């Protein structure tokens, strides 16, 4: 009989959907007799009870305070809940908010901690979780010997959001007193930079040395245009004056900060270039050299001629 506790989150009064993924993760290691409670801090916490009443949720703890993100308050709430309930497991999404509060809460509780967890299970009754290491090149199984409580932050977009419904008990909790050191002042939306905006682009088609000659560059500008992508390039292309420096991705250049899809054609993938794009979730590498280092960070690889692929690709847009 153990208690599992999920810390849900909201931002500006909207439930963070990753909270539902955290519920799924916790439910995966819930054993017979365990209870699963979900806590939410908000100005109107009752408003979230419906969305949080997913299958397997036994209790929703509503903490009426503020919609502002205050790490000090969340940590105090976790301390109070842990003190009263001694949960075996506390789970929250590995979002930017958790980056602020989870490690601080873990040291105050002197509990086990693993962040950015991709999988969790029991091995001979012991909790074992998996996370990545060495820039995603390895996986690591970690355990928590001697820890009564373990706090986990769960990688987002790995677990399905919890669905189904339940009729959980709803507990109202008075917010704990906390020394609040931060004040919310407002929001800033991503800048809508005019002209060439590598850092704001969600879809980048990038070309490297493989393009060979200035006269070939135009074809890729045209392809990027028809696909709705922003054209980027590696350093040698900008150094040659074939494309403006504003299009250069990499250490000497721009960071593809908002990019979701990055297609690298004829880019070998130097360390300098990777600096600007290796974090992108969906990287497609097109290169004649199957051993080009760009393939080591790509999700999809095409061993082939960038011109042939580009010509063929034009037929689809």
């Amino acid at each position: 009989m153990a208690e599992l506790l999920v810390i849900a989150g909201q931002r500006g009064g909207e439930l963070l959907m990753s909270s539902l993924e955290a519920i799924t993760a916790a439910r995966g290691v819930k054993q017979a007799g365990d209870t699963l409670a979900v806590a939410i801090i908000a100005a109107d916490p009752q408003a979230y009870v419906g969305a949080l009443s997913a299958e397997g949720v036994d209790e929703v703890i509503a903490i009426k305070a503020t919609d502002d993100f205050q790490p000090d308050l969340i940590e105090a709430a976790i301390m109070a809940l842990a003190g009263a309930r001694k949960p075996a497991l506390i789970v929250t999404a590995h979002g930017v908010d958790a980056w602020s509060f989870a490690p601080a809460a873990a040291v105050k509780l002197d509990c086990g901690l693993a962040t950015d967890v991709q999988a969790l299970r029991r091995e001979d009754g012991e909790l074992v979780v998996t996370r990545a290491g060495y820039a995603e090149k390895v996986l690591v199984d970690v355990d928590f010997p001697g820890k009564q409580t373990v706090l986990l932050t769960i990688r987002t977009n790995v677990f399905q959001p919890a669905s189904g419904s339940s009729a959980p008990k709803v507990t109202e909790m008075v917010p704990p007193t906390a020394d609040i050191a931060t004040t919310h002042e407002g929001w800033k939306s991503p800048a809508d930079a005019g002209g060439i905006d590598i850092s704001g682009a969600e879809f980048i088609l990038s070309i490297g040395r493989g393009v060979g000659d200035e006269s070939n560059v135009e074809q890729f500008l045209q392809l990027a245009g028809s696909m709705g992508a922003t054209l980027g390039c590696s350093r040698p292309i900008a150094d040659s004056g074939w494309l403006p420096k504003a299009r250069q991705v990499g250490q000497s250049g721009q960071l593809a900060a908002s990019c979701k899809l990055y297609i690298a054609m004829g880019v070998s993938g130097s360390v300098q270039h990777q600096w600007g794009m290796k974090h992108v979730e969906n990287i497609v590498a097109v290169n004649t050299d199957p051993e080009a280092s760009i393939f080591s960070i790509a999700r999809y690889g095409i061993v082939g001629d960038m011109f042939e692929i580009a010509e063929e690709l034009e037929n689809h847009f």
Partner: protein
Amino acid sequence: MKIMVAVKQVAFLDDEFEIRDDGRDVGEDFFEKDLNEFDHFSVEQAMLIKEAAGGDAEVVIVIVGDEDADDALRTALAKGADRGIRVWDDALAEADGIAVAKVLAKLVEREKPDMVFTGAQSADFGSAVTGMALAGFLGWPHAAVVSNLDYASGARTATLRRELEGGLEEIMTIRCPAVLSIQLGINQPRYASLRGIKQAKQKPVDELSLDDLGLSAAEVAPASRVRRMYAPERGKAELITGSAAEQAARLAEIIKELRGM
């Protein structure tokens, strides 16, 4: 006025590597080591504050690591920081962010800085733990993933922006002293000049042990233990094969799916 910047030496793995015989790490021949990418930004932020104060601020770089980590420490010093502290003990061989934060907390007690910076995460394990765990030990105000900072040397509050999911930023004020973890792109990190690199070799670096800090091995126990390490099943790119026409057709599908076209 003093700013402490905690940095880390990170390891980059070769494309091909072998797991150590005990199955809990990679063999040490397969690594390249360097200063954590995020730390270039946190060191730069400290230097900008120092320079804005007309140099009237001390920037102290601290690192937990063996002799090898000296390179990363000197790389940070070469950018103009004043001095360094390196802490090592064999008991720290399996230290995680929590254990390192415990050591850093002792250093903060000794040095009494007005502000502490760390990188938002490390480029190798990406735990994003050390800085905020340090704040937890100290009971200091803290904010993670800081993408913009308005702070004058010695001020009682700072205004910052946290970078959230989807490029949205939250503006907040925070009481100082504080621990802030610094995001990539907050500034344009400088490159150390050749002169700076030469000077860094002469800069004072305190080498401390756990004893020196009054810590026992038990006090720096990690909050988790590595059971095993292994290469993921799908570590490499999924290859799209076929003729160019087939490959492009599949790529077009992927693009349309991911772009919702």
